[in-house]
């Protein structure tokens, strides 16, 4: 029961993370070059770009870890159905991390290829799908929690 409650909280955090990533990508990469009479110093812009990728990276890892943590919690609480629902995503995360580009530091995204339209589109799609998944599971957990509270 506490488990569900916890998950609610954590998922909010996760959702926020993902939103940030998704929107960030959207905004900065698909921003219409129009009106770019602006002034961003290229070097600054570039550093920002790399930093942004780093932020994304920083967001992605926690997300993976939190998700993994939940799975463990569900396992401990013997919530088999919930665990089953989450296993595919867990497997995907593992696969995704195993097949990441060569990097000396932890992370998923390579600044030199992220601008490739295919990769960018893939990352975005992935972000939205996961967002949907988390949202749905959020309501599912909420329902579970209330159900438990009411019935007890």
């Amino acid at each position, binding site marked *: 029961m506490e488990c569900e409650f916890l998950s609610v909280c954590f998922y909010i955090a996760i959702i926020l993370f993902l939103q940030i990533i998704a929107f960030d990508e959207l905004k*900065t*990469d*698909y*921003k219409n*070059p*129009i*009106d*770019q*009479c*602006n*002034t*961003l*110093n*290229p*070097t*600054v*812009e*570039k*550093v920002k*770009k*790399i930093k942004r990728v780093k932020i994304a990276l920083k967001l992605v890892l926690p997300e993976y870890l939190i998700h993994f943590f939940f799975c463990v919690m569900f396992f401990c609480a013997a919530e088999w159905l919930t665990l089953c629902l989450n296993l595919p995503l867990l497997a995907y995360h593992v696969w995704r991390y195993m097949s990441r*580009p*060569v*990097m*000396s530091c932890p992370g998923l995204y*390579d*600044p*030199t290829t992220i*601008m*490739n*339209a*295919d990769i960018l589109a893939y990352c975005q799609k992935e972000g939205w799908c996961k967002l949907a998944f988390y949202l749905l599971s959020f309501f599912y957990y909420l329902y579970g929690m209330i159900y438990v509270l009411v019935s007890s």
Partner: protein
Amino acid sequence: MSTAGFNSQNGTGTGQTYANGPSQNPVALQQLPGVSYGMTHQPSYNPMPAKAPPPTGPGLYPSAPYQPVPPVSSYQPGPQITSYPSSPGQPLLPRPPLSGPPSHTPPQSASPSPGPRMPPAQATPPPPAVSSSSYYPSPQQPMAPAWQYNTAPPPMGPPTSISTPPRGPVANHVNPAASLAEPLPPSSAPYSTAPPPRVSQSVTQPPGPGMPPTSMLGYTQPGTAPPPMNPMVPNTYQPGRPAYGPPPTGPSPIGPPPIMKPTPPPTGPPVANTTPPPPKGDAQCGGAVNSTVPPTESDGQEGDIECPGAVAGNGPQASNSYNHVDNKMAGLAQPGPPGRHLGHYPSLPPGYQNASAPHGTSSMHPAMQAAMQPYTQAPQPYQQPPGGPGPAQLSPSLAAMSLQSSTPEALRVVNLLQERNLLPPTPVPAPTPCLPQDLQKINCNPEVFRCTLTSIPQTQSLLNKAKMPLGLLLHPFKDLSQLPVVTSSTIVRCRSCRTYINPFVSFLDQRRWKCNLCYRVNDVPEEFMYNPVSRSYGEPHKRPEVQNATIEFIAPSEYMLRPPQPAVYLFVLDVSHNAVETGYLNVFCQSLLDNINALPGDSRTKVGFITFDSTIHFYNLQEGLSQPQMLIVSDIEDIFLPTPDSLLVNLNECKELVQDLLKSLPTLFGKTMETQSALGSALQAAFKLLSPTGGRMSVFQTQLPNLGVGALQSREDPNQRASAKDIQHLSPATDFYKKLALDCSGQQVAVDLFLLSAQYCDLASLGCISRYSAGSVYYYPSYHHQHSPAQVERFQKDLKRYLTRKIGFEAVMRIRCTKGLSIHTFHGNFFVRSTDLLSLPNVNPDAGFAVQMSIEDNLDDMQVVSFQAALLYTSSKGERRIRVHTLCLPVVSSLSDIFSGADVQAMTGLLACMAVDRSVTASLSDARDAMTNAAIDSLTSYRQSVLTIQQPGLLAPACLRLFPLYILALLKQKAFRTGTSTRLDDRVFAMCQLKYQPLFYAMLMIHPALYRVDDLTDEGALNINERTIPQPRVLQLSVEKLSREGAFLMDTGTVMYLWIGRNCHPNFLTQVLGVPNYAAVPENLYLLPELDTAESQRTRAFVCWLRDQRPFYPSLHVIRDESQLKANFMQNMIEDRTASALSYYEFLLHLQQQISK
């Protein structure tokens, strides 16, 4: 360009920078032989052509009545006349009829009561019409040659035609030159003064055709012609045309005719202009920017235009341009009988080529030239009618309209299984887009900017159906022999998408233009109204910016983030035992000594040296030292700079020390026994040294770095080379080099890598340092100063070119395209900073780029789309410059049109880039399958969607007939072949080259050229610079073409093989090779002896000519049947079967099988 950023700077108060920029520029310009601009002037004439074409209309308007009309006649008829009146729109134009003041009035009134006016206009027109007809031809031709087809430049070639005729005109031109100077003073000096002159001009002009200065005649006449600008306009108006016809100028295809009507007022504007001359320097330049930087753009300054011919590198011709133009002018001036002109010109029009060809453009790229010729003239082979001379004028429309009725040559069905001799005897020409001729004439040179589909499909689904890749291939910084350069305080750009004004925009009226990429309507700034070339006012459409698809701007200070950096060169040299063994240091030091004065740069140029083995050695070259001082840093884990100030020194001040160092360097490490290499640390040190300024780092490495950061391990198992199912280790082993490259890119440092190694060096990892910092990679496998003389020679020549070629610092390139198209992926060496912006710390003239495009929105309502590549860089002289290329292509809605516009070479080049990516991210076999599928898919699509009659066999449209051959060649290319023993580094290097080389050179790598050279004759020979260059035909790459009685030259781009048949004619052996018989041909012959015989001269001239075509130096190997290199030679016989690969015929059968499934 990244417009961004300027403001910030401004804000920060880089005021000084500006001072530099602007002030310098003028000076520089003046120094430059003003020159060239002449050429650009011609543009002014275009107007006429523009008109003409419109009527013909780009097939879109099938209704157009004109098509049937025979070429010549077509002009005179209605459209023209009507068009004439239109010109009134421009104050000057109508001169003869409307002379003087009247001109103004008509236009104004025109808007309200076009009808009435027209009649008079028409009446008058006739005369003009006649004359105009005569002009037509001429205009066309001047344009083309201009610099546009640089390769072709020569028309005016140095030899120059200064012959008598030109003189008169020359005078004229002189004026312009002079004029440039004149106008300038006002601008430069008191700005206030400037306005007055203008006023006066404008006033005077109206009166006339008369034009103030006599000299002007030449210009004015042409100029008077109808407003050129509207190239695109064509048909839209037709209906309205009779009435308003003329105004059409404005008409962008899109622009609704109604708009036009309002436009007439434009004419009014001119008047207005005259009065308000001083009006502000418009805000056009990006409002924000301007506001921030008020000072620079004083209104008074009008753009002075100059053309430092020199810009392009080989600039000699530039000066001539004037004369050349003059000639034309002369011709023009005489309103000779049309007939005569026609007779004369027709041959020229299509071409940019004719003139040029013969004269041989000096040193430039003869090769290119040769290549070019085909484009223009050659339409015959493949091209649609457009190419043809006489009919050419009509052709575009005809071609487009009559597609159904008669199949154009490009779509002629070819049964690949039956036709064996598909190779054209000359280099394969690029197809010409099916555009109205006036547009085509000013379109970007295909050597610079090329698209895989010269007809853009309307929708993505149509593109998917055609199954052909859509992309651009660019060579943006190519050495051009003639390049118009414009200095202007305000660079006219679209306010919303920041597109630079270009020949494909449409002028709605005199004061407004419509962007051809985003369709926003912009104001024409006041300064732009004045045309410094012709010294006329009110003809914005005749400015060079609007007459040239490739142009260079001297950028004002808003385009600087910091003061332009000086040229900084840092050399990082491997001096480990292995390096000393190869002996490259001698060659390097000698080359640098020889070329030290030719390094591009100015008085601020800096150089520095770092050497490394297991430690890092710095050289203190501070002025005042009696000899260079070596500082050794052995702490490679935490690298630091011992004396940060004196390691990079001003080349001019410390030249002697530098020379001392270079002389002593080779001997300094002669006895070293150090075998380790701490490349990673050396790069870090170099990065630290360069990061304050940015610049170029040249790294020479001879072995696998094995110490400190960035150490690598050998990943290649030589035994697996041939047998491995799939090639491993194509991706980097560490991201150290990539991260360092990104840091470098951020600090405007580019790293060029010279790899001279006999062993595995892990180029896949090392190459990243250049790839992401926009450097270049040179690879000399098995380099040794004694054992491989051919490599040494190549290294020397490459170094010379490398050290002396043009260079641009702190560059960015932005590629814009018409709304609806978007950029999918970039290929080449750079860092992608945002979706359409490439960061290029250095840009060099030998770098090519490829861009995959996708169609996001339907292009239904467009007739043409445009692409613009803008490269902002700092020249070695510290000038900020912008080079802009604009390409315009038609949009089509039928599959057959798409197929007829396919550019098979560009497609091959783009596919190669995509395949390289695929083999790194997925696997080599994936990439190979993808390439095969590309051929299958496109041919299947053609068969299913375009072919109406199904016949047996493997059918392809004529324009794609070489596609399967090229795909097979790619499959057998070093980069992608399997089953043959290929060293991993060789493979990776080939991949780098495919992505990085401009298309022209990449094609030689993919499909080498084979010539028979034992029977060279002067028949059909080119004549360049007094040298006769035989032109043997290109043979198919099949052993069946070889014969024991002959000698064959294979040109693979970086290497040439001269294969001597066993029974080769003794005459060839003695006369060319200088040996008595076959057995006496030495094993390692890499030079053709300079014998004083006709055969020898011919052969050497031909080889030399081939070499001159490219920036790198191909080494030549003479091989016999027993030579070791024979295997390499035979591997290039791509049409033959090998143990592991299909022959061409088998490959075709395979395709056919797949297609008929």
